[in-house]
C-alpha cells in the first residue's frame, strides 16, 4: 500500500496538553457574569399525569429567579435521524425536555433557576406536585402478557411504526418451557433463503435462550449545559458527540433557526452513543436563560444522568441454529424481544439479525422481533447497538456447537467467516438481492489473532481446573457498521502558508476530530506542524459533517477531507498554470510548493498561491462555491471566503457495498468455582478496519470498546423494583462499570491494516465492533471454563455462577429482566 508520511503514524493530538493540564474546557467549566444555576424536578413515578404544580412557595424564596415547565417548551420535535442500521421510527408523542406525562421515574417535569445550586435544590423541595399515577411496565414480558400493563396510554409496541397494544396469549407463554423464551406474535421479521431446507441439512440443532441487559451509557461527563444569549443568538456550551449535527436539533428543541445557534463543544467527556445529537434537556438552560435574561448553567448529576442519559436496549432472544458436521451454519432462526424504553423503538433487535447474518453467513435465516415499550429511561444506540447483543446471543451457541461437534472454537468461526464482498442482511424487497460489504478479511484476522494470543498453546488450559480455579478460553467475531458517505470537506491554505482544516467532528475522545484532517495534510504533503485544525465551535465556520457516532467518522470524513484536499490541489495546479503557463496537469505539489513536474524547485509556494487565490477570487478563495455542498457548508465557506485558497468539496466518491468493520477477540479467563470470583488472564484483539490512521487511538478504541463489552459480560447492571417501577442501580457504585483492576492484565492488539478497496485512503471506522467482540470473547471463555448452560444472561456475576454451579439454577428466573 501507499507509503504515507502522516497516515498510520502516531502523533500527539493538539488538544492533549490542554487536557492533561486541566485547561481544556468542558461544558461545566464555562463561566459567565451573573450565571444562574438550574435544577430539575424529576418524576417520582414511572408513569403519571401531572394534575397540578404549585411552585408559589419556591418562587417566593430569595434567590429563586424562574421556573420552566413543559407548557413553555416549543412543540416536541421529531427524534433525530439515527445512524445507519437504525431504522428511523417516528411517532407522537415524542420525548421533550420536560413533560406533563412522565413515562419513566426520573423524567424531568420542571426546572428551577436560582442564584446558586443550593438555593435551586432547596426550591425544588418546596414545590408541591399533584400527580395521578398511571399503569406502568418495566419488563417487556409483563407487558406482553394477557391483560399486562402498557407503558404508554397509546400502547406498548410499534406495528408499522404505529404505537399499538400487543398482547400474547396464555398459550404463547405456557408453550415456552424450561426457561425458554416464549414466542408470540412478532410484528417485525425478515428472511434469507429457505429456512426449513437449512435445518434439514443440519447435523446438530441448538435452541438457546439468552438475555442481554439494558445498560446506561454513563459517559464520565454528564450532559451538563450552559446557555447565554447574545444579540439574539443562543450561545450553548454543551456536551455533545457531534458538533455540527447538534445545531439543527438544538434549534428545534429551543424553537429557533439553526443560524441563531452558536454551539460550543470543544471537549466532550465521552458519549458512547448517548450524546450523538446532543440532548433534549439542553433546551432547559437555553429557555431559562431567555426567560431570565441571565446565563444559566444546568449541571447534571450522576443520578440524573442515569435517568436522562440514555441506555442500551436490552434484548431477550431465543435462537435455533443448525450446524453441519464441519461446523458450517446451515440455518439460523432467531426471535428477539427488545426493551425499548418509553419512547421510540431502537434498531438493536433488528441489528441482532442483520449482524448475525454477516458474522456467521448462514445458508438460511429468519429473524423475528418485537420491540416493547417500558417505563424505564429512554434508549439510544450504545456502541454496537444490537451488534453487542448479537455476539452475546450467538457466540456461546457457536462455541457450544464446536464442543459438541469436536471442532475447534476458532476453526468453526473460520468455517463460517464472512470474506470479501460477503452478503448480509434482509434481501432488497424489489431485487430480492442481499446487500454486501465493501470488504471483509475475517479469516486473516482469526489467523493473526490465534497466533497473537497463542491459541494452540492455550488450548491445553481449556476447561481445566487446578484446585478450585477453572480456566477457559474463548473467541468472538464481531462485525458492525463502519462508515457513511456524502459529507463535505473544507480547508484553507492561508497566505502565511499554513494549512487550516475545518473539522465539524465532535471531540468526544476518539481523536477522529483531528485524525481525519491528517488525510488532507497528507494529500497536500503538508508537514503536520504547518497545519492547524479548527473545531468545537460553530462560530469557527465548520463544514457539514456526519454525526460522530456509529463509527462513521473515520470513513466519512477521511473521504470528505480527501475531497477537499483534491479540490485544493486542483486549484493550486490551476493557479500555477495560470501564472507560469502550461496545463494544470503539468504541475505537481510537494514540500509546500506547487511546481512543474520534474523540477521541484520551480513554481509557487503555497503561501504565494494562497495570495494569488485571494486576488483571483471566485472559486479559488471561496467566493464561488460548488453547488452540491450542504447549505451548512455554504454558510461556513462563505464566511471564510477571501482568507486564502479554499479547498471545499462534497464526498462524491463511489463505493461498492456497505462499509463494515470486523474485530476478532480472544480471551482467557479464570473462575474460582468455590466463590464465583472471575479473573481475565489475557485478552487479544485483531482489527479488520482498513488502513490504520492513528495506531495509538486505534488500539485505544479497540481496547476501550472491548472493555465496554467486558463490562456488560461481568459487572454492569440494570435493576428495577417491579412493584414501584423504580431503578435501584442509579449510580456507579450500584450499576458497576468495570474498574482498572477488573480489566485484563495482559492485553495484545494488532490491526490487519489492509486498505478497504472502496474508499480513498482505505480507512474504516472502529468504534462499534470491539464491543461485541469483548463481550462474547469473555462469555465463550466463561462457558469453556464452567461448561455450557451455566449462565443464560449477563452480567455473569459471582452469584450467578455459584447459584448455577451449586444450586443448579440462576439467582433469578431465566426470563425476568432488570434483575
Amino acid at each position, binding site marked *: 500500500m501507499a507509503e504515507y508520511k502522516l497516515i498510520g503514524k502516531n502523533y500527539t493530538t493538539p488538544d492533549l496538553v490542554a487536557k492533561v493540564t486541566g485547561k481544556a474546557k468542558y461544558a461545566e467549566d464555562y463561566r459567565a457574569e451573573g450565571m444562574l444555576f438550574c435544577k430539575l424536578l424529576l418524576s417520582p413515578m414511572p408513569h403519571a399525569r401531572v394534575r397540578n404544580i404549585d411552585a408559589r412557595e419556591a418562587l417566593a424564596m430569595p434567590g429563586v429567579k424562574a421556573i420552566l415547565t413543559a407548557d413553555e417548551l416549543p412543540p416536541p420535535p421529531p427524534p433525530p435521524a439515527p445512524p445507519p442500521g437504525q431504522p428511523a421510527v417516528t411517532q407522537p408523542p415524542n420525548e421533550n425536555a420536560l413533560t406533563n406525562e412522565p413515562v419513566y421515574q426520573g423524567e424531568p417535569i420542571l426546572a428551577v433557576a436560582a442564584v446558586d445550586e443550593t438555593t435551586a435544590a432547596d426550591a425544588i423541595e418546596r414545590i408541591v406536585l399533584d400527580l395521578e399515577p398511571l399503569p406502568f411496565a418495566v419488563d417487556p414480558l409483563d407487558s406482553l402478557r394477557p391483560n399486562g400493563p402498557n407503558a404508554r396510554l397509546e400502547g406498548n409496541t410499534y406495528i408499522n411504526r404505529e404505537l399499538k397494544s400487543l398482547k400474547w396469549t396464555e398459550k404463547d407463554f405456557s408453550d415456552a418451557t424450561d426457561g425458554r423464551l416464549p414466542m408470540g406474535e412478532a410484528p417485525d421479521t425478515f428472511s434469507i433463503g429457505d429456512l426449513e431446507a437449512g435445518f434439514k441439512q443440519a447435523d446438530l440443532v441448538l435452541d438457546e435462550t439468552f438475555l442481554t441487559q439494558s445498560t446506561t451509557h454513563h459517559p464520565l461527563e454528564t450532559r451538563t449545559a450552559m446557555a447565554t444569549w447574545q444579540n439574539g443568538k443562543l450561545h450553548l456550551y454543551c456536551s455533545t458527540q457531534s458538533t455540527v449535527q447538534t445545531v439543527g436539533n438544538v434549534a428545534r428543541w429551543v424553537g429557533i433557526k439553526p443560524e441563531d445557534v452558536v454551539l460550543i463543544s470543544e471537549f466532550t467527556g465521552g458519549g458512547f452513543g448517548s450524546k450523538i445529537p446532543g440532548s433534549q434537556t439542553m433546551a432547559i438552560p437555553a429557555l431559562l436563560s431567555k426567560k431570565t435574561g441571565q446565563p444559566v448553567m444546568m449541571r447534571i448529576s450522576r443520578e440524573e444522568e442515569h435517568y436522562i442519559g440514555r441506555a442500551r436496549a436490552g434484548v431477550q432472544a431465543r435462537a435455533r441454529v443448525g450446524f453441519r458436521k464441519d461446523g458450517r451454519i446451515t440455518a439460523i432462526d432467531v426471535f428477539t424481544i427488545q426493551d425499548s424504553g418509553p419512547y421510540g423503538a431502537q434498531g438493536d433487535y433488528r441489528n441482532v439479525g442483520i449482524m448475525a447474518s454477516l458474522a456467521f453467513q448462514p445458508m438460511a435465516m429468519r429473524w423475528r422481533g418485537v420491540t416493547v415499550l417500558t417505563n424505564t429511561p429512554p434508549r439510544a444506540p450504545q456502541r454496537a447497538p444490537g451488534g453487542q447483543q448479537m455476539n452475546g446471543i450467538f457466540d456461546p451457541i457457536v462455541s457450544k456447537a464446536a464442543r459438541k461437534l469436536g471442532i475447534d472454537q476458532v476453526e468453526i468461526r473460520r468455517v463460517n467467516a464472512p470474506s470479501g464482498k460477503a452478503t448480509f442482511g434482509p434481501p432488497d424487497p424489489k431485487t430480492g438481492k442481499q446487500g454486501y460489504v465493501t470488504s471483509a478479511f475475517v479469516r486473516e484476522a482469526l489467523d493473526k489473532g490465534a497466533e497473537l494470543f497463542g491459541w494452540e498453546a492455550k488450548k491445553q488450559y481449556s476447561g481445566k481446573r487446578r484446585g478450585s480455579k477453572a480456566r477457559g478460553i474463548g473467541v468472538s467475531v464481531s462485525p458492525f457498521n463502519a462508515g457513511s458517505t456524502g459529507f463535505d470537506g473544507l480547508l484553507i491554505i492561508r497566505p502565511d502558508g499554513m494549512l487550516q482544516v475545518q473539522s465539524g467532528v465532535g471531540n468526544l475522545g476518539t481523536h477522529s476530530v483531528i485524525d481525519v484532517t491528517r488525510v488532507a495534510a497528507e494529500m497536500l504533503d503538508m508537514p503536520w506542524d504547518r497545519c492547524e485544525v479548527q473545531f468545537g465551535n460553530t462560530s469557527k465556520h465548520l463544514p457539514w459533517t456526519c454525526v460522530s457516532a456509529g463509527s462513521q467518522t473515520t470513513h466519512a470524513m477521511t473521504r470528505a477531507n480527501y475531497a477537499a484536499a483534491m479540490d485544493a490541489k486542483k486549484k493550486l495546479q490551476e493557479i500555477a498554470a495560470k501564472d507560469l503557463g502550461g496545463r494544470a496537469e503539468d504541475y505537481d505539489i510537494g514540500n509546500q510548493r506547487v511546481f512543474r513536474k520534474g523540477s521541484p524547485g520551480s513554481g509557487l509556494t503555497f503561501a504565494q498561491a494562497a495570495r494569488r487565490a485571494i486576488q483571483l477570487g471566485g472559486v479559488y478563495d471561496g467566493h464561488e462555491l460548488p453547488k452540491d455542498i450542504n447549505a451548512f457548508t455554504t454558510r461556513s465557506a462563505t464566511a471564510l471566503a477571501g482568507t486564502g485558497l479554499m479547498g471545499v468539496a462534497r464526498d462524491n466518491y463511489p463505493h461498492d457495498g456497505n462499509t463494515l468493520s470486523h474485530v476478532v477477540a480472544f480471551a482467557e479467563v479464570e473462575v474460582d468455582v468455590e466463590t464465583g470470583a472471575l479473573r481475565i488472564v489475557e485478552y487479544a484483539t485483531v482489527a479488520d478496519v482498513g488502513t490504520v490512521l492513528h495506531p495509538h487511538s486505534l488500539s485505544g478504541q479497540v481496547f476501550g470498546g472491548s472493555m465496554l463489552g467486558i463490562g456488560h459480560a461481568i459487572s454492569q447492571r440494570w435493576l428495577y423494583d417491579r412493584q414501584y417501577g423504580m431503578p435501584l442501580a442509579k449510580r456507579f*457504585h450500584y450499576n458497576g462499570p468495570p474498574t482498572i483492576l477488573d480489566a485484563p492484565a495482559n492485553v495484545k492488539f494488532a490491526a490487519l491494516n489492509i486498505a478497504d478497496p472502496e474508499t480513498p485512503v482505505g480507512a474504516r471506522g472502529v468504534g462499534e465492533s470491539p464491543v461485541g467482540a469483548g463481550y462474547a470473547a469473555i462469555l465463550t471463555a466463561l462457558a469453556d471454563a464452567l461448561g455450557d448452560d451455566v449462565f443464560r444472561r449477563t452480567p455473569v456475576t*459471582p452469584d450467578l455462577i455459584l447459584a448455577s454451579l451449586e444450586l443448579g439454577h440462576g*439467582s433469578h428466573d431465566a426470563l425476568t429482566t432488570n434483575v
Partner: protein
Amino acid sequence: MAVIHDMMPAFELFQPTSIADTLTLLGRYRGDAWVMAGGLDSFDWLKDRIKRPRYVVDIGGVAELKGIRASGAGLEIGAGTTLTEVVRHPVVKEKFGILLEAAEAAASPQIRNQGTIGGNVSQDTRCWYYRAGWSCYRAGGNICYADTPTAINREHAIFDADRCVAVSPSDTAPALIALDAKMVIRNLEGERVVDAENYFIGPGIDITRMNILQPGDLLTAIRIPDTWAGAQFYFEKIADRKVWDFPLVNVASAMVANQSAIQRIRLALNGVAAHPKRLVEVEAAVTGKPRNEQTAEMAGRLAIAGAQPLQHNGYKLPLVKNLVKRAIRGVEGSWTS
C-alpha cells in the same frame, strides 16, 4: 414536597480538635448531632438530602483519635486512623496481617486515604431501598421493601433478619472480631469497653441502628490484644468488582493449629446479616479437630445451619460454606501463568 438528590442542605458545622470538645458537642446536641469522621458514608446521606442533621460534628481534626500505638499487650488503633495508615503500619503487618488484608480490601485507594477504621466498622448498611430514602423499617417506617416477592435482594441477609434484611457492609469488622478486638466508647459519663462482636446489633434489638452507639457516644479507639498475634490468618472478600464494591460475603479467621489439630480459632463473616457474624458453633466444633478437608467440610455445613435465604441470595449459602471451608483448610491449587 418534591424530592431531589443533589447538593447538601445547610447545616451547622463543628470541627472540634479534642475528644473533650467533641463529647461536649455530642452531649449538647444528642440526637440532633451527626458525627462525621472520613465522611464517605455521611456525604451520601447528606447529598441525597435524606438525612437532615442540624449539627454536623466533624471529628476529622481530633488528633487524639488518630494513630496506632502499643497498648499493654497489643495495639490501640485510634478510631480516626485512616485505613491506609492501618495498611501501612509495620506492627499490623507483622502481627495482625488479617487486619491489613481486610483494610486493603475496602473501597478504593482514595477512600482508604480518608476513610477511618472507626467509620468503616460503624458505617450504615448499603441496602439500596434504604439508601434510596424509602421509608422502610430502618428509616422509621413499617415495611421492608427488600424482602417482598418482587424485591431485588441479591445483596441481603441470610441470617438473623428481623423485619429488616439489610447487611453490614464492613470489611474490617469481621477481621476485628476474629482478632478479639475491643471497642473503646466514650461519652460525657465516661468510658466503656466492649468486645467487637458485641459492638454490632441486629434489627431485632434496634432496627434503626447497626451498632450500640447511642446519641452522645463516640467510638474513640479499637484495642487489639496480642492473643492472636502472628496466628494463622485467613481473609477473603467476594465482591462484584475489585474496587469500590462492598462484600457480597467476606470471611476472616484467626487460627492456632499444629500438625495434629486446631488448638484455637476465631471465625467471623460479614455481608450475611445486619451485624458481622461470629461463628461460635463452628469455632467450638473444629477446635481439637485436625485441620483437614473433613473438618473444613463439617465447618462449612455448620456455618450455614439456620440460614434463611431470600428470593435472590440463595447463592450466599454455598458461598459462606466454601469460604468457611477455605478459612479452615486454605485454598487449593493455583495457576502459575
